[in-house]
């Protein structure tokens, strides 16, 4: 049903920079890599807290429905978001979580990385946890050129914070490089495709 679409959902709590991360990858894909892209979001009326969700649909052809139909990669930065937004991930989809904030994983096809801890300890500011996560997502999805991602990031962050954000992005990329996706269990559902 979702043909050439690749769908990423960023989720967490309001104030974690979920939407910003989605906008940066959408910019990288759309403005720098010249693919079709649609970025949408949903959030509550609160300024902070509450569930926050942003989606990015990437395609080589014009995109009709702008929101996710079935998610290829879900980033969850809180347990609540993980529980709320996991339901329509593809059987072969990938879950990426902040290991410090999400302990109960609804699937074994999951990658846990301590984004917030890396941001706090390696970069020195917890606020860039979203950019650490963005680096990992950008690397793991395989849908965006990493140099485009950095260019888009630098064009969108406030002046004076480029260095910190760029370091955060690279920390995320490096962390993701350690992950062997092939070692993750495959969904048994795909073995049943012929019978279903």
């Amino acid at each position, binding site marked *: *049903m979702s043909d050439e679409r690749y769908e990423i959902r960023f989720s967490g709590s309001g104030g974690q920079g979920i939407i910003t991360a989605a906008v940066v990858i*959408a910019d990288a894909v759309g403005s720098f890599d010249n693919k079709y892209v*649609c970025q*949408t979001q*949903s959030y509550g*009326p609160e300024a902070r807290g509450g569930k926050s969700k942003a989606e990015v649909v990437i395609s080589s052809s014009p995109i*009709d*429905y*702008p929101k996710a139909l079935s998610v290829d990669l879900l980033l969850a930065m809180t347990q609540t978001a993980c529980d709320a937004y996991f339901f329509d991930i593809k059987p072969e989809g990938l879950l990426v979580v902040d290991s410090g904030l999400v302990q109960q994983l609804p699937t074994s096809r999951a990658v846990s990385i301590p984004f917030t801890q890396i941001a706090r300890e390696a970069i020195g500011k917890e606020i860039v946890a979203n950019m650490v996560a963005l680096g990992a997502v950008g690397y793991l999805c395989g849908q965006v050129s990493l140099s485009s991602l950095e260019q888009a990031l630098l064009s969108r962050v406030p002046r004076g914070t480029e260095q910190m954000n760029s370091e955060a992005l690279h920390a995320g990329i490096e962390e993701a490089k350690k992950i062997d996706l092939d070692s993750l269990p495959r969904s048994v559902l795909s073995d049943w495709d012929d019978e279903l």
Partner: protein
Amino acid sequence: MVTSDQQKRILLQGNEAVVAGALAAGCRFFAGYPITPASEISELLSVKLPELGGTFIQMEDEIASMGAVIGASLAGTKSMTATSGPGFSLIQENLGYACVTEVPCVIVNVMRGGPSTGLPTSPSQGDVQMARWGTHGDHPIIVLAVSSVSDCFSVTVKAFNLSEKYRVPVIVLSDEVVAHTREAVALPDADQIRVIDRIAPDVPPEWYKPYADNNRGVPDMAAFGDGYRHHVTGLIHDDHGYPTQDGKEVEKFIQRIHRKVSKGFQEIQVIKTHDMEDAEICVIAYGSVARSALRAVRDARNQGVKAGLIQLVTLFPFPRKSVDSYLRQCRVAIVPEMNMGQMSREISRVNQGGCRIVKHNKIDGHLISPEEILKHLITV
């Protein structure tokens, strides 16, 4: 809008594309009051307008905003405001004034869940009939709907052009999904955009009759300060702009302000169609829902259903002539809307029993999914 791959694409939000369209069409005045999900329009114009020598003013409320917009337009500046449901309620009084004084202006209403303060961050299409009939009296008005980021640009340009040409307020209906969706688009260069300006009088000031009829039904419009004295009133007025109760003059006036829009109907009514050539079932949709509908139509085609999409860009005056033949061609028309069925009533009205109309209404603050529409397409 045609996007060529040679041009540099930029990532824009629907609201940002509205701003780009307004500026390209020559808008140089904005008055408004911030409201989710329309605030980005004000925010961006507050930066862009001063750079272009234009004026941005945040008013005390939407009633005053609409008043300022009318004043600026009377002074010869293309003007707009942008708001959402609660603010749209407040502009209605002065909107009627703009209709009867024939002042060109554009009002963007980014629809969110209502009634009242409702659901500030959720999409809705609940203001469709209000856009047409929100202000009192028999008034002419044009209502356009946007469904994508590129639409936000091109339809806003069209809104200004129609408003200037016919001297009528034009409402652009957006919704929270369209407004906040970001897409990479290539905007056309300024020289590729057709911009229409109101026609100024060419008679000497002492001969000027500000509301005199002509073959277009649209009086020439002098800007305040250009030396053409004229009186502006919300009372029904004669050719000179002075109040009248003379039955003949009243009827002539009301007839003319409606006739000018009817005369332009061919140009005003815009629809887009997909896969309609051999369609037996069609979906009639507008706004963000049109994108869900397009997806559903494609999925239905893959399952062998001869489905098609009619996307309404012009909602009012209802594009009856464009839709008519399709209603006769199809056996069923599905009308998905994020309201209780405001446009489906209009479609049933013009349909005259031609085909079966199936409503699909969603009022929970979420965008209608392709799957919901597909279900109808494969079962009706």
